[in-house]
């Protein structure tokens, strides 16, 4: 393992210049596959010796190009993603794989595909419910994805190779969970801002390199003195995406962010993929059932004549109870990206659920622009003033 003191600074370097590594790999002849959403099964990309690269938006980038293709009252993340693509900011991608995890992504990536003709493009369809037939259908969709990627990579994907990739990514999930254990102490050993840099770095690197980075970060964090200073509040952030440290620093000005339940945080690492005889079964189950994005329709007692509201909330948000207890959270920020329907419809229920758990929460909306951060500051400060 490399120099232990380098982990965090390396992560922040990668955060600053995300595409640096994949461009190197491309120069070495490796093919780079972009993906805009954590629902894309990276294991299949990794197993075929391709490098997965998460495409993000950029709150600093005024949307100009995408205005031609998308309305303004629309998921701002997808708008900037398309905008960056149209501005050829990720022209190093050899291919792109998107998934119908939400409507804005589905519609945007279809437009994306027709404007930016990548050598490879695949759209995975995804059911909204957790029924048996939905899982079957989803497995078929994953298998189709595997097939097209195989022919793009020009090789067959053996079940063993896929299993190996699953283990590799499970290792990554385990390491991230281990890293998150280090936010349990009061004060935490690693800040939310550092964590975000690490997570974003992971989504910019091949899995093996990501695991190596995690190893370095974990031992560095465990050994270092002078981690983040103790703040009056320990926050859980619940959001679709938090992908900019300016936002995280704004939260951490008066608090410690100890848990980030977004796809800039633990969401992609909370659970493991089960190793099944047919590895696709494990992947199907994990990606449809285990990932806790609001886009999935979950119901308490499915199809029963009666439905208990609280049981329903538990089945949708139960995992958050664990977070608040184990990480001893005393404040929750429900951080909504404007026009995100799946998350927006959740707000009322979720606020009720946290009341029920006895944890103060606030709902803050932002429009994914740098300009919207200033009003954000006042809200965050005011919220912290109510709980201190």
């Amino acid at each position, binding site marked *: 393992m490399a120099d232990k003191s380098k982990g965090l600074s390396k992560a922040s370097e990668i955060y600053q210049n995300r595409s640096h590594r994949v461009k190197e790999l491309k120069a070495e002849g490796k093919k780079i596959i972009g993906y805009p959403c954590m629902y894309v099964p990276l294991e299949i990309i990794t197993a075929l010796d391709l490098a997965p690269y998460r495409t993000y938006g950029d709150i600093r980038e*005024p949307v*100009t*190009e995408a*205005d*031609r293709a998308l309305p303004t009252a629309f998921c701002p993340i997808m708008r900037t993603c398309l905008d960056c693509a149209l501005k050829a900011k990720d022209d190093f991608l050899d291919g792109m794989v998107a998934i119908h995890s939400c409507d804005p992504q589905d519609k945007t990536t279809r437009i994306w595909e027709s404007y930016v003709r990548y050598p490879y493009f695949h759209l995975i369809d995804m059911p909204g419910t957790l029924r048996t037939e939905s899982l079957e259908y989803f497995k078929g969709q994953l298998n189709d994805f595997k097939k097209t990627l195989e022919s793009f990579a020009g090789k067959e994907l053996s079940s063993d190779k896929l299993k190996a990739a699953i283990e590799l990514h499970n290792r990554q999930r385990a390491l991230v969970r281990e890293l998150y254990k280090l936010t349990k102490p009061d004060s935490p050993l690693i800040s939310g801002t550092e964590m975000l840099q690490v997570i974003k770095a992971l989504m910019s690197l091949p899995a093996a390199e990501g695991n190596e980075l995690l190893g370095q970060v974990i031992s560095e964090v465990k050994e270092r003195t002078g981690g983040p200073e103790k703040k009056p509040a320990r926050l859980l952030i619940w959001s679709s995406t938090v992908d900019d440290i300016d936002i995280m620093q704004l939260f951490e000005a008066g608090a410690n962010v100890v848990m980030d339940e977004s796809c800039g945080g633990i969401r992609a690492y909370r659970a493991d993929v089960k190793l099944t005889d047919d590895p696709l079964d494990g992947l199907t189950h994990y990606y449809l059932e285990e990932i806790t994005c609001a886009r999935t329709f979950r119901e308490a007692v499915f199809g029963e004549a009666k439905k208990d509201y609280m049981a329903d909330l538990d089945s949708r948000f139960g995992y958050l109870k664990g977070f608040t207890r184990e990480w001893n959270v005393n404040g929750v920020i429900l951080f909504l990206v404007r026009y995100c329907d799946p998350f927006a419809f959740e707000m009322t229920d979720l606020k009720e659920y946290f009341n029920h758990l006895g944890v103060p929460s606030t709902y803050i909306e932002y429009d994914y*622009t*740098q*300009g*919207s951060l200033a*009003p954000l500051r006042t809200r965050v400060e005011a919220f912290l003033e109510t709980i201190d």
Partner: protein
Amino acid sequence: MAWFMGIDIGSVYSKGVIINDDELSAYYVTLSGANYRAAAEKIKLELLTQANLTQDDITDVIATGSGASSVYFASQKASDIVCTARGISSIFPSARTIIDVAGQSTKAMRIDGQGLVANFAVTEKCAAGSGRFIEVIANVLRIDLKDFGPLSLQSKNPITFSTGCAVFGESEAVTRVAEGIPKEDIAAGVNKALADKISSLARKIVLEEPCALCGCGALNIGLINSIEHELNIKLLLPPQPQIIAALGAAITARTSSLKR
């Protein structure tokens, strides 16, 4: 000698012109205020005095703009887009694209050799894409509208404006001011933000050169530069960019009377 009057009642400014068979004999620009009818009346009198004519000398009057219906003495209404097209092509026959940055909205249009509209797009109902944005921010910065452009040119590093609502942009500007950001950087940021919106509008209709700029936005040198830079073109700038639609209305009046 026959004279024709064109009157353009916009939501912020009202403009009027008198032309004769071959030249512009009078023009006038004033604030529309609350009473469009009064504005129209005022313009008419002002124009007649300037041109030293009486109402009877005027063969025909055509009104345009959002308040066209308040011009009680006009023989007919015409679309401001069509009038702008006619107006520009009378000044720049070669022009193929027009960007009109008006008080409440911005329009981009393509025209053919005869000044007929070939395609057009109008900003969404949002002041952030119109001259209104600049007025709002000028007010925040407590500077005179006419100084806005020149001031913005002094900027070393313009701020990035999140192209939101003009009023949201206003509070953003207030915050930036509070952070101690120099006025010129904010002004330049606004021009950049507006230029971005305008440029994507122009791209939407597939901009074809030469391209003319008119409307109150054409009085803002900072905005002009930002648009030219963003689209990487040189803009044709008419004298009196605000009266173009009124001019077009007068020309329409002349053409239709020639047809008769």
